[in-house]
């Protein structure tokens, strides 16, 4: 009798491919790929059904380092290619990886449509506010005044907010993570994967060569407590070293303000409780900027709805059910025909 050996439990390292990683030493991408391998192990994800699809840029090298299926495609088009793959085989667990230029400049149109269609996949946007692979030009998320090889006296155009863009496109899952937060990032990835529909995750990623320290103002050890808020569904929106600060709707205004519990008669009851299904709240949380308000991190919005791939598959199933096994011979003979003797 054969005794079935239970499959060995996969470790994080089992999800790492044998390829030599080619990012710059100290790049935030190392931390993200590590967090992803941890996530995969925690989920015991089937590597043969997992696919990473990317465009072009530093972030887009990601698939080469995962021991899953991977497709490194062309600049900006990963979302479109991933949509085709998901339509063709809805069983696949598809993760799209792109940088800020890939996703929001050349690929902005495809990101818009993959989100509004609600294709069931995860879209990870590694935002480092710079074009790294082309040696440091400013990107669509760079702040006004960014000096770069193409803007030697500073950029003049306004940056786009990836999460506000995503919400505007109709994304039903919007989250944020920080590359170095190895405890939190896998949790965000797991939530993204369990969400049915397009899950959009912005990851603040440090480019050590061309834009080093661009997020220090809320990720530095000393800055985290007062400039970051970890949002969690059903929990009060508290932050600060001793969770003494909170967010509330400013009385008489349609805006959020930061308050301190114990000051001016403020109690915890005044503080907003995070409701990840509330799009208006999500929009306000995404718009927050330190130092006035903390940077919101975590699952900001999650409100599942029908997915494109399910809808499409249902139409095919319905079409197949409608008749007997279809015959092309029959189809070709439907309608007027005539016989030549």
């Amino acid at each position: 009798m054969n005794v079935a050996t239970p499959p060995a439990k996969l470790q994080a390292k089992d999800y790492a491919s044998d390829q030599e990683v080619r990012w710059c030493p100290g790049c935030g991408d190392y931390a993200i790929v590590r967090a992803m391998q941890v996530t995969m192990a925690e989920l015991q994800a089937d590597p043969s059904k997992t696919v990473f699809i990317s465009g072009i840029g530093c972030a887009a090298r990601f698939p080469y380092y995962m021991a899953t299926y991977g497709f490194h495609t062309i600049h900006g088009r990963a979302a479109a290619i991933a949509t085709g793959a998901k339509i063709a085989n809805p069983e696949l667990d598809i993760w799209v990886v792109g940088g800020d230029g890939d996703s929001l400049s050349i690929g902005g149109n495809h990101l818009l449509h993959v989100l509004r269609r609600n294709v069931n996949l995860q879209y990870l946007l590694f935002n480092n506010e710079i074009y790294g692979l082309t040696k440091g030009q400013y990107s669509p998320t760079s702040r006004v005044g960014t000096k770069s090889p193409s803007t030697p006296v500073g950029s003049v155009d306004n940056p786009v907010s990836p999460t506000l863009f995503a919400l505007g496109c109709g994304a039903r899952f919007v989250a944020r993570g920080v590359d170095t937060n190895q405890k939190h990032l896998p949790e965000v990835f797991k939530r993204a994967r369990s969400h049915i529909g397009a899950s959009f995750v912005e990851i603040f990623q440090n480019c050590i060569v061309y834009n080093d320290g661009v997020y220090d103002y809320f990720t530095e050890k000393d800055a985290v407590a007062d400039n970051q808020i970890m949002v969690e569904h059903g929990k009060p929106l508290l932050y600060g070293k001793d969770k003494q600060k909170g967010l509330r709707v400013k009385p008489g205004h349609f805006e959020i303000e930061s308050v301190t519990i114990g000051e001016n008669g403020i109690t915890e009851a005044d503080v907003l409780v995070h409701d990840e299904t509330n799009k208006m709240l999500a929009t306000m949380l995404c718009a927050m900027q330190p130092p006035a308000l903390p940077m919101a991190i975590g699952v900001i919005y999650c409100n599942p709805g029908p997915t494109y791939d399910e809808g499409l598959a249902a139409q095919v199933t319905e079409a197949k059910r409608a008749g007997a096994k279809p015959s092309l011979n029959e189809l070709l003979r439907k309608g007027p025909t005539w016989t030549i003797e």
Partner: protein
Amino acid sequence: MEGSTAVDKRQREEVEDVVVRFAGDSGDGVQITGGQFTLTTALAGNDLATFPDFPAEIRAPTGTTFGVSSFQIHFGSREIRTAGDQPDVLVAFNPAALKVHLKDVPKGGMIIADTGAFTDRNLKKAGFTTNPIEDNSLEGYRVLAIDITKNTLEAVKQFGLSQKEAVRCKNMWALGLVYWLYDRDRKQTGDWLTGRYGKRPEIANSNIAAMNAGHAYGETTELSGEQSYRVQPAKIKSGLYRTVTGIEGLAYGLVQGTQAADLPMTFAGYPITPASALLHTLSRLKAFDVVTFQAEDEIAACGAALGASYAGNLGVTASSGPGIALKMEAIGLAIGVELPLVIVNVQRAGPSTGMPTKTEQSDLYQSVYGRNADAPLAVVAARSPSDCFYTAIEAVRIATTFMTPVILLADGYMANASEPWEIPDVDTLPKFPVKFHTEKEGFHPFLRDDKTLARVWAKPGTPDLQHRIGGIEKNYNSGDISYEADNHQKMTDVRKNKIDGIANFIPEQEVEIGQAGGEIAVVGWGSTFGPISRAVTNMRAQGKDVSQIHLRHIWPMPKNLGALLKSYKKVIVPEMNTGQLITVLRDRYMVDCIGLNKVSGQPFKITEIEDGIRKQLG
């Protein structure tokens, strides 16, 4: 006979072939009228070819010359190869239609004009200073000036339609009259009208009444002195027939191809004239394992098709020249990662937007050469609506057998035109099932078949074959990324050799009409097939040594083509471009071909090709 020998048909009751052209405003139902006449004519057993020609504007301002839509049908009791050079009968629903089309009607031809539409306002809009029906400018033509509008209103008044709806039935009145003229049965159109307006029987009945009134007008009243004609059933190959348009041929061929390859199809498209109809047609064939996806742009359509191929379906995308240009980067990726992909190009007049509803075959360079780097792929071209079916199957076969993108060239003319088609028994057509790779031992994604040089196709979801592919150069022996100099040379060579090697797996080039060797070969590709074929037949009937060669495989070309071309003293290449195939032929075979080029947005006339041949005969 078409072309060179003009025979006066009006003296005979029995005629061998006839060309009828309907023309009017885009809103006059000209295309529907033509479609019905086509079907009825097909059911009567005639061979036929059609040429729908319409403006890009959906509802151009009424009465204008640029808003004129037309439909030409050529039918006969013998084999018909083109939609005809000149109409024997022109049905002009308004002055603009007459203005645009009169120049094509030979003297002695019949003009049926709706005088009800020849108002001062319409005459002015069409650019007439006086009414051509009354000012003798139609002398030499047989003019049937009938107030079709008034007759139609009279015929349908019992059904209580609005004035606007009632006037719209006038195309059926005219159709009824033409049915009488050529002794055609009205039942098919009556049944069609009843089905089409099932929910509004008063509209169906009005249209039928109008058609019957038009017919009765010819039969019993004013036209009783006119001659009517009979065109006997054509002596064509026995079998079961239907009509088919190029778009239908492409759609059914793609379905048959994917079934033969044992793959589901993912079709991704973006609306563009004249290729959109393929998306429409395939979106109704979901039961055949076809998923259609209307993408956000041409790039996404090609990307999604490629993504579908990556996942193990056959990805197919379609467009016209400008859209193909946008897809080209993704096609380059398909070449680099060696995945199957079928790209249908329904060519139109360009450059840029050009003339979207007019035909041209000027994307041959784009198909063969139009990519960055050394990026070879296969190119095939259909020659007629029914040939679209077989060429689509061939495109799928090459794509899946050789793991390569294939560009399938059709054009606006054949896409919209229809012809009788002997319906094949698809069960007897060859199968070429895809075998996905599943063997773990020794696997890497760029393992190749020794004969075809195709790489293995291991789709995501296959246990233990996880791998990464991408646009970065791959190591020949592992598929891993590689920037190594010798390796890039080797990979470039193998990609080229793979595509060149397809020539070993396609039929040798045959001579369509005539024989290998001799005075002149006329070499064509695409929808010029019909006029070339008739022109060569006519010339041979006059004792001239002229042969026809028509290419399906544009890249790579059949192995014997060079030697075949060199067996003629002269090679003439008619093309609806400024000379693209000719460049490739000269480059490949050092054959000094003679171009015969037309870039007017209109198909070749037979006489134009005959004249071109005659010039070379000296």
